[in-house]
């Protein structure tokens, strides 16, 4: 008949229109952004951050500058600490990442032998001034190890297991009765936060 296709089309839109009211969960899929946020995948990469155990000055990074040389856009800048005599210490005095240049490729995380730099899940970091504000200093980069456990539990376990194995291999001669002061290496998969495990 003449207008049959038009009618079918109209019914489809009518059905969608009613669906949004009768069955909102199925009908509407827009997420009201500031109020509710979409859960991020674990391997989501945003700008890197440095990790410290316990207190901020126990920073894991030993200023070996592998990540600085490895970084494709060269946005990492490290100056190791020097003690009174001028000997180089295994701690970075200055560790800057230029977020404006970093393309969050994640290479620094892969090459870091000391598991001290990881990719963050924080994406609301827009600033007004590109030059000063996006040049992130060491103090702003530092984040506790628990934060890493929270945002990427799966990787946390893998790294913990690796570190535990390495520390066990490194000191087999030392008697094992001394309790390992590192947090227990068991697969503590802290389930805080509503991050669903989408493996």
């Amino acid at each position: 008949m003449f207008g049959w296709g038009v009618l079918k089309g109209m019914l489809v839109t009518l059905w969608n229109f009613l669906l949004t009211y009768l069955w909102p969960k199925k009908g509407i899929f827009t997420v009201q952004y500031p109020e509710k946020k979409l859960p991020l995948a674990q391997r989501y990469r945003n700008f890197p951050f440095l990790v410290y155990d316990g207190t901020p000055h126990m920073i894991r990074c030993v200023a070996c500058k592998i990540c600085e040389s490895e970084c494709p856009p060269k946005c990492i800048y490290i100056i190791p600490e020097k003690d009174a005599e001028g000997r180089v210490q295994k701690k970075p005095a200055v560790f800057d990442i230029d977020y404006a240049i970093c393309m969050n490729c994640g290479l620094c995380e892969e090459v870091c032998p000391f598991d001290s730099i990881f990719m963050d899940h924080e994406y609301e970091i827009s600033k007004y001034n590109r030059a000063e504000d996006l040049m992130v200093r060491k103090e702003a980069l530092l984040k506790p190890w628990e934060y890493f456990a929270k945002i990427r539990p799966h990787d946390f376990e893998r790294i913990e297991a690796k570190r535990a194995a390495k520390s066990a291999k490194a000191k087999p001669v030392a008697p094992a009765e001394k309790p390992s002061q590192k947090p227990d290496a068991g697969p503590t998969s802290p389930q805080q936060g509503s991050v669903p495990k989408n493996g």
Partner: protein
Amino acid sequence: MAETIDQIFVLAKDRFLDLLGIVLPDWIILLVRILISIAVLLAVAPVVMMYMTWLERKVLGRIQNRYGPNRVGIFGLLQPIADGIKMLTKEDIVPKNADQVIHFLAPVVIVIAPLLVLAVLPFGRNMIAADLNVGLLFFLGVSTFGVIALFMGSWASRNKYSLLGGMRAFAQMISYEIPMVLSVVPVILVTSSLSTAAIVEAQLGWKWFIFTPWGGFAALVFFLCGVAEVNRTPFDLPEAESEIVAGFHTEYSGMKFALFYMAEFISTFAISGLAVTLFLGGWDGPAFLPSWFWFGLKTFILILIMIWFRGTLPRFRVDQLMGFAWKVFLPFTLANIFIAALWALLPYPKNFIADTIGITVILTLLQIFNRKETPKKRKYLYAN
């Protein structure tokens, strides 16, 4: 009680005029009586337009499985005001070699036509601004005026896209105006009066014209021609964003663009108002609700249908657009006038039979003549 609610606006106006009558001489009262209805129309039209834009965005959103605007105000109710402010503060660019005078004049003139047309719509029982005895003709006459304004806009902006849009708008408006006028003729034939108030009187008591065999189809044709007249979606070729940038209002920005926008929406309201008056019994409805509420409800439903069209239907091609008007609507409306005459003259049982036969005949004829003619298989002489 229901009577007073029904006549609440009329009584308020009379009471106000009586109060004024004490102070002012009577001829000023006559003027003020006219001015009040004009002021009300001029105030109501933009507000209706603003909240029609809001309604359109909400319904379109819901059709596409998303919320409409819900940030400004509770359900996005302040969104039209925000749009208004945005339109006011936007910079008003006039192209260099545009025709300054007419470029400025076009949006002004295009808003006049829809506002004039509201004067003739019967919003409720004796709530009509100007009860002309040529009301319906006034509506059609003034709506042709919009075409000229639209063309002024497209010609003055010296831009190929707007000129293309203007040409398309011209052709579309003219070819859809004739079926529109012809689809109204049966209503005039049956009510033998051109005044909109008399047309509504003829349909009181659920005797709406849409229920008559000829009325149903005439209403459909009138409504579709109205959608075409207003350049809304299935027929929105003149401002087709995808093909010609923004059609006739490409070179307009800021308040002038808002005026084009307002003209479109107020004429949508006016056309659906007229469709309600002609075929859906105007303000006629069961007595427990006031008459102006029924008019509002029916117009609201028709506007929803227009928005529904916008959410679903793709745009017409130019030749389909023209073909549809000249090959389908025009013959049908001509035959419809004859069928309506049959309906008016024959006594009760016979006229329904005659009408149904007439309508089926004309519809089958249209089907036959408008079927897609498949080209004959080509006969290649030399290839065997």
